[in-house]
């Protein structure tokens, strides 16, 4: 457990020091939210109808941003070799990386999500559920995205490749998260969507590290 704590501390320090990963994702999120009314028209009625959904979509895309460097930097400077040889299994290192990525990028994005949704015209009563779904969904995004990041190690094109691999995997959490908010807004049963979202994120949490570790070992071989 001590070793795992050290791993988490290392990853947190790295991602804070990694040229403001969170700032970059937040700025990107805001920029996407700004472009939406410019592209879709600014009539309040039209925007309000799609506000929660598009806030969620932009969240999914923004969480892709910092994935590219998740394993790549450690892969390039040899730290990944040390992690693979070290006493802690590579699965734990992958878990720590994704958890740290969620804390430094996913959580700030989740806090910004209701602001964006409200600015686009979503009613304020949706804000608490927006934060909760964004926090839970962000966990799933980090652990699913990590698989894409680990798989594309050693490839010629990182960022776009990760997006193409990972975005189809993001279909279920986007559906569950935006669906729960929609249902809440319409006064329908929103707990099912939230529970399905939680189940998805837990599955990603449980299975993702094994896929990531296998992909890292393959890249190191």
């Amino acid at each position: 457990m001590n070793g795992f704590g050290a791993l988490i501390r290392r990853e947190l320090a790295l991602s804070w020091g990694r040229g403001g990963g969170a700032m970059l994702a937040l700025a990107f999120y805001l920029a996407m939210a700004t472009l939406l009314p410019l592209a879709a028209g600014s009539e309040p009625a039209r925007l309000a109808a799609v506000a929660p959904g598009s806030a969620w979509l932009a969240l999914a895309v923004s969480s892709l941003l910092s994935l590219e460097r998740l394993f790549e930097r450690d892969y390039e400077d040899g730290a990944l070799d040390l992690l693979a040889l070290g006493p802690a299994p590579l699965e734990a290192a992958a878990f720590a990386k994704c958890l740290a990525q969620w804390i430094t990028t996913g959580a700030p994005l989740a806090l910004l999500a209701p602001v964006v949704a409200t600015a686009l015209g979503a009613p304020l009563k949706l804000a608490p559920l927006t934060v909760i779904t964004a926090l839970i969904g962000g966990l799933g995004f980090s652990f699913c995205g990590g698989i894409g990041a680990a798989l594309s190690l050693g490839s010629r094109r990182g960022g776009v490749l990760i997006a193409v691999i990972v975005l189809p995997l993001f279909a279920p959490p986007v559906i569950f998260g935006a669906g729960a908010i929609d249902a809440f807004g319409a006064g329908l049963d929103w707990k099912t969507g939230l529970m399905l979202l939680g189940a998805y994120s837990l599955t990603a949490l449980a299975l993702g590290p094994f896929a990531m570790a296998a992909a890292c070992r393959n890249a190191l071989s």
Partner: protein
Amino acid sequence: MIAILTNPQRFMAFSAWFAPLLGVIAAVLAAVGLWSDFAAPPDYQQGYTVHIMFIHVAAAWMSLFVYACLGAASFLGLVFRVALADAAARAAAPLGAGFTLLALVTGSFWGRPMWGTWWVWDARLTSVLVLFLFYLGYLALQAAIDDEQRSARACAILALVGLVNLPIVHFSVEWWNTLHQGASVFRKDGPAMPPVYLVPLLTIALAYMAAFGGLWLVRIRAEVWRRRANVLALRAAG
């Protein structure tokens, strides 16, 4: 089957006669299927678009069947290091993408007269679209990693991740459909298909399957020769 996959020599001897045989079977089945297809009367609801339904539904079945083959080959390659499994997975992916594209395009041509739009965000259509995106991601990853062994193993991991994910995607899309659309375009408990339509549909589906089998073997053979050529080139250079 597995014994043939573990031994390249036996595979080459087996596929040399089995691939052309599958091609002939596919051609015969396609001819029979097309004959019964156009001998069938127009459906009282779908009219003549029922002809599209045969080639569309069969392609949609194949898109899933090929992914199952891809997943099985990836599993054999990753876990048991079966010699030809990597080649088989690599050979299946473009074929699967082709069948999925076919399902999407013909579905669109069927939807336009039936639903009045080229595309409906129906649960089945959407999951086939996500499946197509999976194939594209797989092919992109395969192309992006230069080292053969590494590329094959990374792709195998992705294929297995996809195998876990596809049922979840399918379930989530079904759930989403009940949320956004009162009545689905397809009825789950629709009337049983009369034999006059079942026969052409099943025959065409079998023809597709035989064609896939034959093409799959041809592509695996190409893969075996490609590796052999690369080994010989290395030996000549070294």
